[in-house]
């Protein structure tokens, strides 16, 4: 991230801030989608994060910490969005697109779908730690800093996430192929 651009934004340069937001959008969206697994929710969360960045940027003391700071803002919003997410409606469009875009490494679309369903059974805390660790390849210390918890807590949370994922995969493999789908209910 361009440190000078962040510094200009923290000093009230609205042009620099908008450029910064445009640059940050893809990163934030990827993380949000990784956690929420829904394009609309991810876009909503990203826009809320952008708004929070715009509102609080002048409070950022150290420009070099912008990326971690903005990640934390986004994660807080993702937690809130996930709580509002009562039930899952499969995002079939994105799954189909993904399967067309990249050759399947796991043998079939069904495997992806199983992984998707299993992943969605995880708590948002478990999804978050998996996204930070596996998708963004963050070191444990950086995950801990981003989540605001001790490194040991990250280790145990990751371990529980793996166990929960295994359990969800096993349960899914025993379930009928076509699971009943509930309509999403938003308050």
């Amino acid at each position, binding site marked *: 991230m361009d440190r000078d651009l962040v510094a200009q934004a923290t000093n*009230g340069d609205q042009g620099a801030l*908008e450029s910064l*937001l*445009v*640059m940050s*959008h*893809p990163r934030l*969206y*990827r993380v949000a*989608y*990784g956690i929420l697994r829904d*394009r609309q929710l991810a*876009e909503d969360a*990203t*826009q*809320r994060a*952008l*708004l929070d960045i*715009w*509102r*609080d*940027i*002048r*409070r*950022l*003391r150290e420009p070099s910490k912008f990326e971690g*700071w903005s990640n*934390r*803002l986004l*994660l*807080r919003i993702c*937690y809130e969005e996930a709580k509002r997410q009562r039930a899952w409606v499969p995002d079939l469009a*994105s*799954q189909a*697109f*993904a399967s067309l*875009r*990249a050759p399947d*490494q*796991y043998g079939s679309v069904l495997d*992806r779908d199983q*992984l*998707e369903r299993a*992943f969605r059974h995880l708590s948002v805390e478990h999804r978050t730690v*998996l*996204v930070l*660790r*596996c*998708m963004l*390849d963050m070191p444990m210390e950086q995950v801990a800093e*981003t*989540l*605001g918890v001790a490194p040991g807590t990250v280790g145990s949370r990751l*371990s529980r996430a*793996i166990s929960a*994922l*295994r359990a969800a995969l096993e349960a899914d493999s025993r379930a009928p192929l076509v699971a009943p789908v509930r309509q999403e209910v938003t308050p």
Partner: protein
Amino acid sequence: MNDDQLLGEVGAWLRDGDFEPPDARASVRRAMARTLQVRQRSRWWPLPVLGRVAGPPRMDQTAEFEPDPISATNGHTAIVTGRTRIMLSPAKASFVGAIVFAIGGAWLMAQPLQQPSIVPGAATEAGEGSVLKPALVTGRRVFVSETSFTEERESADSLVQRGRITEVRAFMSDERLSGNVVITDNADRFFDGSPSPERYAGDVLWGTIEITNDSGTWTGTAVGTTDDTTASGAGVTYYELVGSGGYEGLSAVIFEREAGGWVWSGVIFPGDLPPDR
């Protein structure tokens, strides 16, 4: 499949399952459209933000929200000259004025004709008791300069800030409290426990204050907090001051709040600060 293999496959799936995000510029534009209802936060207490510019008008302040003219039935053309405002009728204004005048008059009549100085022998060049008399004061302070915190670190549950020196100038209704002000402030800002450590459950602010003018000096302490429920993170602070030099024998308590600038109000009184507080 062991844990590392599973994590590797999950990571590959997460990265691979990612598709092109929506248009970033369009998304930022939509987010920026929502900034009309949000104020940008500044860094916190106790200083006003220099160079803050007025934001765009609210949605309901634009011309399209003006009332439409209603066609007149007598053939005249109706003209909307501006937004309607609630106005006080002359009768009501007179009535309210009379009440205010009566209360003020009663209060004046209740005052003793002479208020002897409480501190014996407090005569000054300006006249008996003139410097030591109690008085309500109001005014404002204007930012001059500040230093960085000498210590700023994060502990497990708070942001620790120490030793910033701020210079301001006080313009008060009573000249005894006007002058150059030096505030040394400290803060403990407590994280709210959310994943974002930059969010605070609240904070406590404290420090020392010194006001100097040609006649004397006031020294004292400050304690306050930031009201983060407001968009600008407004601070509220109490100052307790003891006079010296020409203000020997006087104390003052000042309450500071943000109201379009930093506003001070309080009292100067003879004697010591209250005990057991």
